[in-house]
């Protein structure tokens, strides 16, 4: 089973993360960590016309959390914010091809989605509290 988890693609994203780094002048930037293990993710976003114009992440943590973050940035780059809103836990797990993780490791896989949704809440917080609320997602909290 570990052989299933740590497939070539996960290790590749872990060792060669896409979209890693910072943005100059991001519209929103946010940090969170997994209290259970200390994994950290920072997300930096540039938003234009309700789309994610640019996205970068910084972070440190396990192969699952970092590969998941890397794959997530690829997934949402240039996509409308409404897509982020609808992204579910299951979407992420399918995207990274890890559908049978235990409860502790699922949190690693979902940390980047949690941070992305938090960044949307923050982005809308002042402009549009109602939309901010839409990004609250109990299913990715832990």
């Amino acid at each position, binding site marked *: 089973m570990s052989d299933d988890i740590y497939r070539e693609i996960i290790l590749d994203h872990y060792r060669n993360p896409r979209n890693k780094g910072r943005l100059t002048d991001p519209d929103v930037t946010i940090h969170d*960590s997994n*209290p*259970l*293990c200390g994994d950290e993710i920072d997300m930096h976003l540039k938003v234009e016309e309700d789309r994610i114009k640019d996205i970068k992440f910084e972070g440190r943590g396990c192969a699952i959390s970092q590969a998941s973050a890397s794959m997530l940035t690829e997934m949402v780059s240039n996509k409308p914010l409404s897509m982020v809103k609808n992204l579910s836990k299951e979407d992420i797990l399918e995207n990274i091809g890890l559908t049978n993780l235990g*409860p*502790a*490791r699922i949190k690693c896989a979902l940390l980047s989605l949690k941070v992305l949704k938090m960044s949307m809440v923050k982005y809308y917080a002042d402009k549009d509290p109602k939309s901010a609320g839409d990004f609250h997602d109990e299913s990715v909290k832990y």
Partner: protein
Amino acid sequence: MQKTALSVDEIRQDFPILKRKVGVGGSKTLVYLDNAATTQKPYVVINAMNEYYSSYNANIHRAVHQLGEEATAAYEQTREKVAKFINARSADEIIFTRNATEAINLVAYSWGRKNIKRADTIVLTEMEHHSNIVPWQILSQEKKSRICYLGVDDQGYLKMTDYERVLKKEPVRLVSVSEMSNVLGTILPLKEIITRAHENNVPVFVDAAQSVPHLQVDVQKTDCDFLAFSAHKMLGPTGVGILYVKKEILKEMPPFIGGGDMIKEVHQQNTIYNDLPYRFEGGTQNIAGVIGFSAALDYLAAIGMDRVRNHELEITRYALSALSDIKDITIYGPKNLRDRGGVISFNIADIHPHDLATIMNEHGIAIRSGHHCAQVLMERLDVAATSRASFYIYNTREEVDLFANALLDARRIFRI
């Protein structure tokens, strides 16, 4: 609503201790009437803890290994069950503490030190348990706030006129009342108390140590802001308390116990605290205790709290009538059954409760005697102590008969 009566005979089979022999030379079968102090435990509760220790004992939240995941799941499922049991909106509003007492202290230290200011009034009642008095005294000493006690009338009811007067005249910042008195059995008109407080923008803390075990409690219905109770008084293990706090309030509360598990990031000079409710659970928790409590909740839910209440009403009615036949007895608390729980405090002639308890003990009957951690109420009743019999789901009429007979023996021994 389940209407059928509870099958006490079957229930008694679930409690190993009820076979215990006590008294002189172990000649008597235990009659346990000290349930307001702590209740007995069914096999399912004991076994749930054995199961944990024997097959998935591990520390929770931070472990990746299988035992840790199993233990974490069992622990967190209990939180969900508690939320459901008292109808909280979310399991995030449930914090596990050591006992009801610590739950009250948590709020006094965290919410209290932040919100109670000099000359503020904290409203309690004369029938509070020490656990709902001393934390507020400690807080008031620090903050120079005031504690005001609502009176109890001669029938054992709360004087609601006192309450109206205090709400009107004083800078009330918190009302903290027990939903059911552990001495008088009085059930307070909680809905009314809370509505009136909220009209004055005052939050209400409910000491539910005696109510959650015996009555259907619904925090959304009463709209209380804080609520505390103990697992050990409702078939659960010792060492587990529960604090419910409305999320809006909880979010603004500073941490209390600092340490492992309640943090997100610790740096040398500052710390980012963890999300709710973990922020309030520092250090390794009583994992086995919480898991045992889970089984207790299942057990009570299967019976149904309405049936628990009905059984207690029935036994209490029977006991009140048996006791009223005894000469020189004074029974405290409301006469109307609907306003009271299964707790009967009394005194007989000049037999001191301690002496009575000693005599009862020889009959194999466990009752409590003393001030019941309610000395303010003892002052009000102008007695040093009372005797107290308190009932739960496994108590029978036959036990009440044995109890009443033993009271007659006490009269004989005291030559009355």
